[in-house]
């Protein structure tokens, strides 16, 4: 732009070492630091933390002359750290995101080279800088408690590690909640949810630390030899929360009204891989049976939850998603499972259920020997089939509603409501007819909890043929739906190829003209 170019560097921004270093950092982090330095809230919080730490240190020093060790002071310091990293830091990220959303600033950011992921990552980096700062304020106190004895180095390091992981996950959750508030209807819910969630977590953790339960738990963990499984599980869970938060933030920040769930579907298939890998790496062989069964069962429940969202989407692909359909026809099948749309959502759940079933069958001969594992396996199987039934109904219900975002929300309320009614109505009917709730009968067949409880034990052989019949029926009913979903994707692929061919022809024509 010739009209506005000059060679003089701005005096106020002359290249300082900080400026050069900051070139390598996320712009969000740089800006948040600049704002924090100019603002009042952050210095005041740091000052207040410092005052609390000095007070605790002085109190601990006075108690030390009476023979007390540093354990009390350490846990008091930890209890000071909890609200900072579980409430203040995430709420700061939440408020920062809300400010950006309110003023439409986030749209301006997304018009730049920053992606939603970079925005979220910048917020997480800011949270980590704040975490390090607060820990450094607490560091003299922690060092004092170590010197006063009663607390060993692994306990201190482990506690700080847990605090960091929780801070990261809570911040990711907070930013994601703020991003969801881009939809006006969700603003109140998001603010209330985040304040309540972080508040409850903070008070719960403070209570956990100050009651001494944390001290006992961490002592037992360090002595038991289960440190690695516990730490790795916590890190894995935090990673899941962070990735899910990123996906949620991304889907709300970019074209909030567009139907797009591919990221979540990929996550649904990838998350179990990491979970099983964690089991293989971190869990001792003797516990594999229970852990495998428990994890597989958990994944069936997670699959149903994801499925409830997938089958209540709008049906078609948006023009933007259509424009980005894969170019290779060979990718039509995987794309049909992963691209948005409720028909493809039901197919995605079915493929997930079949994959989980195969994994379960592969692992069962080796790990399904214990009774608990067997019961969990049977329950999981029934959950998968119930999932298929309820999600098919959910997809049908969604089809009766308007093909917009409000329709999605209404269907997502109606589906759990339907489950609730299927549980409650037969019970009410029993009460009205016979004044009491009799045992399980066919009227309760749509109550998954009671039915599963009835049939996973001795009556399992009677349930198996019914389960197979229902699964096959649902599968057959789904074939035309899957066909339609596939046709839409193949049409999008064909359109993209035609466009590419047209572009190549135009380019060749332009070259020939030149």
């Amino acid at each position, binding site marked *: *732009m*010739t*009209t*506005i*170019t*000059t*060679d*003089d*560097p*701005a005096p*106020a*921004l*002359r*290249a300082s070492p900080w*400026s*050069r270093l*900051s*070139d390598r950092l996320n*712009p969000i982090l*740089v*800006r948040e630091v*600049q*704002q*924090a330095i*100019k*603002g009042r809230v952050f210095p005041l919080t740091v000052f207040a933390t410092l005052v609390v730490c000095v007070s605790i240190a002085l109190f601990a020093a006075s108690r030390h002359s009476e023979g007390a060790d540093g354990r009390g002071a350490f846990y008091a310091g930890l209890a000071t750290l909890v609200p900072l990293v579980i409430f203040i830091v995430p709420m700061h990220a939440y408020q920062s995101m809300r*400010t950006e959303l*309110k*003023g*439409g*600033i986030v*749209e*301006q*950011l*997304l*018009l*730049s*080279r*920053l992606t939603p992921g970079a925005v979220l990552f910048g917020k997480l980096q800011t949270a980590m800088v704040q975490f390090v700062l607060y820990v450094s304020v607490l560091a003299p106190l922690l060092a004092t408690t170590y010197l006063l004895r009663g607390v060993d180095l692994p306990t201190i390091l482990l506690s700080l590690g847990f605090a960091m992981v929780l801070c990261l996950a809570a911040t990711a959750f907070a930013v994601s909640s703020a991003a969801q508030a881009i939809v006006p209807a969700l603003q109140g819910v998001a603010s209330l949810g985040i304040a309540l969630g972080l508040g409850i977590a903070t008070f719960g953790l403070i209570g956990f630390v100050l009651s001494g339960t944390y001290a006992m738990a961490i002592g037992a963990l360090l002595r038991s030899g289960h440190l690695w499984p516990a730490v790795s599980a916590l890190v894995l869970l935090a990673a899941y929360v962070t990735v899910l938060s990123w996906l949620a933030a991304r889907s709300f920040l970019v*074209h909030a*009204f*567009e139907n797009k769930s591919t990221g979540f579907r990929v996550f649904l298939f990838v998350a179990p891989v990491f979970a099983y890998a964690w089991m293989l790496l971190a869990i001792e062989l003797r516990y594999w049976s229970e852990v495998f069964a428990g994890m597989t069962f958990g994944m069936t429940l997670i699959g149903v939850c994801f499925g409830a969202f997938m089958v209540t989407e709008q049906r078609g692909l*948006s*023009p*933007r998603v259509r*424009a*980005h359909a894969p170019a290779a026809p060979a990718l039509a099948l995987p794309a049909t499972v992963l691209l948005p749309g409720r028909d493809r959502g039901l197919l995605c759940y079915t493929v997930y259920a079949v994959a989980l079933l195969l994994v379960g069958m592969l692992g069962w001969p080796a790990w399904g020997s214990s009774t608990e594992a067997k019961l969990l396996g049977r329950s999981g199987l029934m959950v998968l089939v119930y999932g298929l039934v309820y999600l098919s109904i959910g997809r049908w219900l969604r089809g009766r509603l*308007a093909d*917009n975002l*409000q329709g999605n929300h209404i269907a997502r309320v109606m589906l759990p409501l339907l489950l609730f009614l299927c549980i409650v109505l037969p019970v009410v009917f029993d009460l009205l007819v016979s004044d009491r709730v009799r045992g399980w009968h066919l009227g309760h067949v749509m109550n998954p909890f009671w039915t599963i409880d009835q049939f996973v034990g001795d009556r399992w052989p009677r349930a198996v043929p019914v389960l197979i019949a229902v699964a096959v029926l649902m599968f057959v009913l789904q074939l035309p739906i899957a066909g339609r979903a596939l046709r839409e994707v193949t049409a999008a692929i064909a359109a993209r190829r035609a*466009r590419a061919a047209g572009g190549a022809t135009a380019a060749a024509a332009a070259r020939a003209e030149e």
Partner: protein
Amino acid sequence: MSGSLLEVQNLDRSYGKVHAVRDLSFTMQRGQITGFVGPNGAGKTTTMRIAATLDVPDGGDVRIDGVSVLVEPRLARLKIGYMADQFHPYPNLDVLQYLDFFARAYGLRGDRRRRTVRSVAEFCGLVEFADRPATGLSKGMGQRLHLAKTLLHDPQLLILDEPAAGLDPRARIEFRALLKELAAAGKGVLISSHILPELGEMCDSVVVIERGQRIVAGTIAEIQRHQELEQAVVARTIGDAAPLQRFLLTQPHVGEVAIDGARLRFAFGGDDEALAGLLAAVVQQGLPIVEFARAEADLEDIFLKTTKGRLQ
């Protein structure tokens, strides 16, 4: 690249039952300022947001310098600068820090970033406000800062949604001068505004839409011709204008004649030759005429003539 800078092709966008934009098509060229005009709720902001890759159409496409906003939104973003109708700067940042942050967000690094921030601030007249808090600027200076942020990555097309709303006359004149300078530098400017006289002064062409549909598009002169708008003629006499009015009413092609003191404004349906004949006739009658000229129809006339004020 040759061809149009902006091509809106059969654009459709609905929000539930409301069709915000229906089958809208128009183009604009480099170095042009195009006014985007329509009543409230006509679909201007929706169209602009789709062109800025911030919304997704239900059908159709928008191409920025040949790049589809649907197929290559990231590439399209590098070619556009979008200025929304509202400006909310970050708290606790001064003007240069604000620009510096967005320069970083646009991937500018090192000396290039510093130079760009400086030059954009100079261009928009922000240097003397460099260390002022961005939230403490007047409305006019805030809009300049908003524009400066929009220019950081040197976009080819500026999409400005109501940029002059709330500005005082001086700020508006200065802002208009900035836009003309940008157009002279070869950038395309698509601007929506309800201040039609101002748009009429700066725009090379206009697109008028109503209820999401294009009503008319082209230069003001083209639209006049196309709409067969009766052109007005203004005349001034020495003393009483009533004799001139009586005479004019007897002449061919002359429509309604309105008197405003010594001035007359009358509708004239004839061509330039007929107008010259009319002037000769007036002089021959010995009427003391000192001013006689066509008054070109302005954007307001076009807007009122072409739109019906229907809401959706």
